[in-house]
């Protein structure tokens, strides 16, 4: 389920009518208040593990992550971190909590976890094939193997990990971290068929599997057919193919002058890799304006820190060659023009084309799915873009026993989405094998527990840190550029990790209001540092949003509305910038407010096997 499609808790607020009291029994209402967890595709209980880090409970913090996102050490370095732009701290001050880097702290400082691994049930006689050994398939295997399924993982590569191994460079993700987290799953008794190129889905189905999961990713890099392309084939490289060949040790040099085409994360990995293989003058050249580059801001920063120049608004025109050798690329200069609807076009500036000399070109302008090995006559439907038709909830294709997930399902995304898909597909496969309806899903497991310990004591730290986001220390640049295996980011040490963890606002410790206890004394209104709370006459939502103390302009943030109070007014709390400091509850004379920790765990395959 995409979080944004869900408008929890509000009930049906018909236009023009007063707001209904918020239904806080809808688990999605408080879930949405935990901005990071809501934004995380796997709904990792972020504040819960951040508190554990602050308490030095690294192993516990690691396990909370491992349950949700399977690869804490890997993701703590590489996650696309959709949680961070969502973090409340962005709205309160400026920079989010360094959620991703804290995950790495848990992984770096944890103790032994072998004894915490799930017990593997005795074989249940079911056999599941996972095609592709990337994070999506590994998640399916992780969820199903402990339930007694016999899982077989196929990959054409020699080891598991998928693009986490073949694409993500070792200077961002050390091989030891990758091996450890991948092997942990393979050790659950997974049968591996590596070095095996699957060329026919039918033949896999013929082996009599109870279900087949396709997690083959989006393995094809986009080509660029402009004049000169074929003539310079020797020095023209598709980015992801080139990165794979570097990762597997087939390529270890590159020309002195390198042009990288494209503005996404693959381009950033290409240019940084080129700098480590002998490139001296490495340029990234993008069509779009700088602000529209697809790469994550931190990846762009990392590239720039390594003296890589990024040129924007240049559209490649031609590969220039002499005597069969690439000598450079010409570009048309463009500028962005926006029409009334805000759509952007790139319009030539009319200037002379720009020429940049180079020895190698790395082309990183996109990735595609490619399923030549899936027969089109076995009841598995493909749409007009030649993508399999896959259900967004169950992840089942139109073939009853074939499921898709990760980049193979809906096009290239990232690891955490692959994991989220894998969890859901595992649930579906388990339901299929148990003969249950796939579209019925188990509700999340939630608890809501008061944190009150004394008059004004809470079992969470409610003193708000005013520290700014801490930077992660980096390895010495000259050393890092000289060694392709040297990890650039060193990670927080325990002290920095603690200080950063204290920046978390504990958004899962919810302000819970009990209308019947309130005497409308205004104490909470007066004390709230961010003016969240109001006692006001009810009105339709758009009006209420305008009438409260500070108008609630961010409609993605909900209003928490109480039942009618004795004066006829209602309590309206704008969730937007609440600091979860608990002062409202501390200053409330009747305990109408309480601070309750809301733990939300997405249902996994294992929960439904234990359930009724």
């Amino acid at each position, binding site marked *: 389920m995409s979080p944004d499609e869900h408008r929890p808790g509000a009930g049906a607020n018909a236009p023009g009518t007063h707001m209904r009291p918020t239904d806080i029994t809808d688990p999605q209402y408080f879930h949405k208040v935990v901005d990071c967890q809501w934004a995380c595709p796997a709904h990792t209980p972020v504040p819960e593990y951040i508190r554990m880090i602050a308490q030095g409970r690294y192993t516990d913090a690691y396990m909370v992550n491992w349950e949700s996102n399977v690869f804490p050490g890997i993701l703590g370095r590489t996650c696309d971190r959709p949680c961070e732009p969502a973090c409340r701290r962005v709205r309160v001050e400026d920079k989010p909590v360094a959620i991703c880097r804290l995950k790495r702290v848990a992984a770096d400082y944890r103790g032994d976890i072998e004894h915490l691994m799930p017990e593997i049930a005795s074989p249940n006689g079911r056999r599941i094939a996972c095609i592709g050994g990337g994070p999506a398939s590994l998640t399916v295997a992780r969820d199903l193997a402990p339930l007694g399924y016999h899982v077989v993982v196929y990959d054409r590569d020699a080891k598991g990990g998928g693009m986490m191994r073949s694409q993500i460079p070792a200077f961002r993700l050390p091989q030891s971290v990758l091996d450890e987290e991948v092997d942990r799953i393979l050790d659950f008794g997974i049968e591996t068929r590596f070095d095996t190129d699957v060329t026919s889905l039918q033949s896999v189905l013929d082996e009599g599997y109870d279900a087949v999961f396709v997690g083959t990713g989006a393995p094809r890099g986009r080509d660029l057919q402009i004049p000169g392309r074929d003539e310079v084939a020797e020095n023209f490289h598709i980015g992801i193919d080139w990165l794979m060949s570097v990762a597997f040790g087939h390529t270890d040099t590159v020309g002195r002058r390198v042009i990288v085409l494209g503005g996404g994360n693959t381009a950033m990995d290409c240019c940084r890799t080129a700098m480590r293989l002998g490139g001296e003058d490495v340029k990234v050249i993008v069509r779009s304006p700088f602000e529209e580059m697809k790469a994550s801001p931190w990846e762009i920063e990392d590239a720039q820190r390594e003296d890589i120049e990024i040129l924007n608004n240049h559209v490649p025109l031609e590969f220039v060659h002499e005597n069969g050798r690439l000598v450079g690329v010409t570009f048309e200069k463009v500028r962005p023009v926006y029409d009334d609807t805000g759509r952007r076009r790139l319009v030539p500036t009319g200037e002379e084309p720009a020429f940049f000399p180079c020895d190698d070109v790395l082309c990183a302008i996109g990735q595609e799915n490619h399923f030549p090995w899936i027969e089109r006559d076995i009841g598995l439907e493909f749409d007009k873009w030649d993508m399999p038709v896959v259900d967004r909830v169950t992840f089942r294709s139109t073939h009853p026993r074939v499921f898709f997930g990760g980049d193979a399902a809906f096009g290239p995304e990232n690891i955490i989405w692959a994991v989220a898909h894998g969890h859901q597909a595992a649930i579906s496969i388990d339901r299929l094998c148990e003969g249950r309806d796939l579209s019925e899903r188990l509700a999340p497991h939630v608890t809501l527990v008061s944190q009150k310990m004394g008059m004004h004591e809470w079992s969470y730290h409610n003193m708000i840190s005013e520290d700014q986001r801490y930077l992660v220390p980096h390895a010495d640049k000259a050393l890092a550029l000289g060694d392709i295996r040297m990890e650039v980011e060193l990670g927080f040490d325990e002290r920095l990790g603690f200080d950063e963890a204290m920046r978390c606002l504990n958004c899962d410790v919810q302000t819970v209001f009990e209308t019947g206890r309130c005497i409308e004394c205004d*104490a909470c209104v007066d004390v709230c540092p961010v*003016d969240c709370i109001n006692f006001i006459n009810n009105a339709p939502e758009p009006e209420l949003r305008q009438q409260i103390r500070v108008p609630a302009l961010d409609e993605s943030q909900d209003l928490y509305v109480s039942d009618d109070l004795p004066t006829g007014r209602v309590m309206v709390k704008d969730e937007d910038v609440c600091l979860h400091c608990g002062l409202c509850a501390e*200053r409330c004379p009747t305990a109408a407010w309480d601070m309750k920790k809301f733990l939300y765990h997405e249902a996994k395959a294992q929960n439904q096997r234990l359930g009724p």
Partner: protein
Amino acid sequence: MSFVSKPRFHHPRLPRNSLGLTRRDYEGAMSTLCAGCGHDSVSAAIVEACFELDLPAHRLAKLSGIGCSSKTPTYFLSKSHGFNSVHGRMASVATGANLANCDLTYVGVSGDGDTASIGLGQFAHAVRRQVDMLYVVENNGTYGLTKGQFSATNDRVSVGRKGQRNAFEAIDLAVMAIQLGASFVARGFSGDKDQLVPLIKAALTHKGFAFIDVISPCVTFNNHYGSTKSFEFVRDHEHSVLATDYVPYHETITASYAEGEVIDVTLHNQCRLRLRKLDSDYDPGDPVGAVRYIMDRQAQGEVVTGLLYLDTGDEDLRGKLEMTSRPLNSLDEDALRPSPEVLEAINVSLR
């Protein structure tokens, strides 16, 4: 009492006044009063009023006596001058300070015990003298700080927390202030800031003695059933006679009201008060009628709130004493020392 300090983070879209300050800039230290104490709401109303008036905090002095109420100046306007005096003696400190430096705005905060018992004499004479200040009584009918004895403002019918009878007649400080010649008298309720904030703004702007009796429930000792100073009782029995809108001088009045229902009053700084009569019988310019009205309603068990009496014509203490318009602390030797001729003339007149 909260042990954490209030986070400095404020709402990113919190409005700023003409000084570039937010409401939060007018706050003080974290309150140590009981959670839910009405006094904290009065502090918040003072903060709001000063913010909206664009007052520079360092040009204001806050004074108080002893009591929970008298502790509150610590919890607002941390950048202002302050004097926490002894029990019942705030009025004389304010009088002295006001005479010495007329350039500051004076806000006195007191309690019903501090004012109506030990400080009654001081209070009476500050009113009579028309000291130019805002005098706020946070009236909860009890001695909160000393654990809940009846105060002199507790209504005779109002019983104690354990059902104790109150043997004595109550003093109505607002009525008393009208009788003693205050030029601005109002009654508010800590649970109604929509009414209280404009009253404080008007009182701060008024020249002369401005008195606001704010009913401010003590949640710990006097908020029970049977008390006439509880949130519930006041909400049920409040009778507001005059709604007060404070209109800054640069703004024009846009709302229109029925003829005769509105009184516009211009204050000393050219700002206006727009008074809307909620009871057509009420005339805030008639002290005798006002006192009669309040007592009538009181006899019926009602609590009259709003602006009760206003006289913008009377002089303040310094005017009455024909004092210089300059603060005394700014007068140098030349201004203070009479010339030999003047001295001689005085001496001659006394021989």
